[in-house]
C-alpha cells in the first residue's frame, strides 16, 4: 500500500524517490516500511537501518508537524568526503509527518534529483496524503491489536490448561505410583492395571505440557500467517537493510501446524538471504487455493550454489524436511533473471 502511495504522489510532484519510516510504538524505533527508487547510497544496508537522522529527531521533538511540511537537509544524504557520490545528487527531501488523531505514526520522505521548492498547493497535497495514509496505518495497527488480543487469549487458555488438566493428571500419576509401590510383590493383576493407568497418565501429562507449550510459544503469536510474515519482513528489513516485501494474495486459511512450519521455512530462507546472498531486495509471496498453498521467497542477490556441498550450510535440508513433514514439496532454484528462489508447495486436506 505504502509503496503505491509513494509512486502516485511521486508522479504527481515529479519526485521519483521516496521512503517511509514507521514508528514501532512499543520500542519507539523506526523501521523502513516502504521505499521507491532509493539512490545507491541509501540502498547500502547500513544507511537504512533506522539509525537516527535529523528528520527523525525533529519528528521526535514535535517540530515536524502535519500542518508544516518541512524540508530538511538530510544527514543521511550528505556525501562523505573522498567517497564517490552515490546519493544521485539528492541532498534534500520533503518530510511529511504521518499521524492519526492520537498517535505519531511515522515519516514519509519524498525527493528527487531535480529538487525544487514545493509550491503551497504541493505542500497541501502532501499534508492531505499524510493524513489519509495515517488513517490507513492506524486501521492496520488496530487489526494487529486484534491479533495480539487473540494471543492473550491463547496465553489464558494455556494457563487454564496447566492449572486444571496438567495438575490433576500429575496428581493422579503420583497417587498411582504410590499405590503400585505398596502392592510390590503381590496382586500381580492389580499392579499390571495400575502400570497401564500410570503409562497413560504420564503420556497425557506430556501431551498436556506440549499443548501448553504450543499455545504459549506460538511463533505466530496468534496472528494469521500473512500478518506474521509481514512483521517478520519488517523486522528483517530494519535489521539487515535488505528490503523485504510480502505479497499475500488470497491466502487460504490453514491449519495452525501448517502456518507454523511455513513461517519457519520463510524465516530460514530469510536468514540465508541475509548471510549469503548479498541481495538488496527479497520478495515473499504467499498464494493458494482450496487444494494447495504456495510460498516463494526470492531475492536479487548473487545466486547461491545449490550443489550438495552447500545444501547443509544453507539450511536447505531443514527447509526440505519441514516441507516434507507437511506432505509438501520444496525446490531451490537460481532463476535466469538472477538471485535465488525457494518454492514450497503444500497440499491441503480436501
Amino acid at each position: 500500500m505504502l509503496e503505491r502511495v509513494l509512486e502516485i504522489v511521486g508522479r504527481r510532484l515529479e519526485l521519483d524517490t521516496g521512503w517511509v519510516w514507521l514508528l514501532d510504538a512499543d520500542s519507539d524505533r523506526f523501521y523502513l516500511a516502504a521505499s521507491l527508487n532509493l539512490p545507491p547510497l541509501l540502498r547500502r544496508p547500513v544507511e537504512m537501518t533506522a539509525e537516527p537522522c535529523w528528520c527523525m529527531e525533529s519528528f521526535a521533538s514535535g517540530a515536524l508537524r502535519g500542518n508544516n511540511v518541512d524540508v530538511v537537509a538530510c544527514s543521511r544524504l550528505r556525501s562523505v568526503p573522498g567517497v564517490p557520490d552515490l546519493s544521485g545528487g539528492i541532498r534534500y527531501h520533503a518530510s511529511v509527518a504521518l499521524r492519526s488523531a492520537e498517535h505519531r505514526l511515522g515519516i514519509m520522505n519524498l525527493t528527487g534529483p531535480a529538487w525544487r521548492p514545493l509550491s503551497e498547493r504541493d505542500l497541501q497535497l502532501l499534508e492531505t496524503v499524510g493524513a489519509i495514509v495515517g488513517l490507513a496505518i492506524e486501521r492496520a495497527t488496530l487489526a494487529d491489536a486484534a491479533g495480539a488480543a487473540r494471543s492473550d487469549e491463547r496465553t489464558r487458555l494455556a494457563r487454564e490448561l496447566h492449572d486444571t488438566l496438567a495438575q490433576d493428571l500429575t496428581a493422579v500419576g503420583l497417587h498411582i505410583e504410590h499405590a503400585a509401590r505398596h502392592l510390590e510383590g503381590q496382586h500381580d493383576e492389580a499392579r499390571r492395571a495400575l502400570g497401564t493407568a500410570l503409562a497413560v497418565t504420564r503420556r497425557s501429562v506430556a501431551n498436556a505440557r506440549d499443548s501448553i507449550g504450543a499455545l504459549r510459544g506460538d511463533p505466530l503469536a496468534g496472528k494469521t500467517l500473512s500478518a506474521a510474515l509481514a512483521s517478520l519482513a519488517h523486522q528483517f528489513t530494519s535489521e539487515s537493510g535488505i528490503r523485504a516485501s510480502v505479497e499475500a494474495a488470497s491466502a487460504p486459511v490453514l491449519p495452525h501446524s501448517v502456518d507454523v512450519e511455513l513461517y519457519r521455512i520463510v524465516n530460514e530462507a530469510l536468514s540465508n538471504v541475509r548471510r549469503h546472498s548479498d541481495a538488496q531486495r527479497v520478495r515473499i509471496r504467499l498464494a493458494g487455493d482450496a487444494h494447495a498453498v504456495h510460498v516463494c521467497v526470492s531475492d536479487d542477490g548473487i545466486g547461491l550454489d545449490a550443489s550438495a556441498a552447500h545444501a547443509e550450510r544453507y539450511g536447505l535440508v531443514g527447509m526440505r524436511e519441514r516441507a516434507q513433514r507437511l506432505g509438501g514439496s520444496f525446490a531451490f532454484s537460481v532463476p535466469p533473471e538472477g538471485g535465488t528462489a525457494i518454492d514450497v508447495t503444500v497440499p491441503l486436506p480436501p
Partner: protein
Amino acid sequence: MIRVVVVDDHPIVRDGIVANLADAEEIRVVGTAADAATATDLIARERPDVIVLDLELPDRSGLDVIASFTAANNAGIVVFTAYGGEERIAAALERGARSYVLKGTPSDELIAATRAAAAGESRLSPEVATALAGVMRLPRRLRVTEREREILALLAQGLANKTIATRLDITERTVKFHVGELLDRLGATNRAQAVAIAQARGLL
C-alpha cells in the same frame, strides 16, 4: 533421617508428593505449605534439610523465594514443577536450587533428587541438562537482564508502557528503551511476540 518440607498449591498433587516421599524409609515429611508466605514461616520453624518446591505459587513466584529459602537455613531445594524452559531452569539453579525435576517423571526420580539434595548434590535429568547447556551457549548480549525480566512479566500482563513505568518508578522513556532491548534480545518484532518467545524459553 532427611527432614522435608513440601510446597505446592495443588492439594492432591501435594498429597501425592508426600505419599511418595514417605515411601522412602529415610525421608520424613515434616510439613507442607500451599503458598510462599506459609512456607516461609514453616521453614523458619522446622528448619528442614530439603524443600520440595513448586515454582507456580499463588502469592509469589517460586523463583523469587529460592534464594531466601536457601539462605535461611542452608536447606537443599528440589524444584518440582510442570514447566521446563531453559531460562527458568538456569534461573532456578543460579539462585541456589540443587535439582530441577519435571512433574510427570517417575517419582523415584524425585526421591533420588531429595536424597541428593540432603547430601548437597545435584541430580539433573538429560532433558534438564540439555536445556541448561543451551543457555550457557547463548551469547551474553542475547541474555535478558533482571530488569528486563521484570518488565517482561508486566508486559505479559498486557500493561501499557506508562503503567509499567509507574509500577517500577522509572520514566516511560526508560521502559521504551528496555522494551526495545528486549525485542532485540528475543528476536521479536512486537510485544506479543516477545511474550510468546519469553514463555517458550521459560523467562516468564
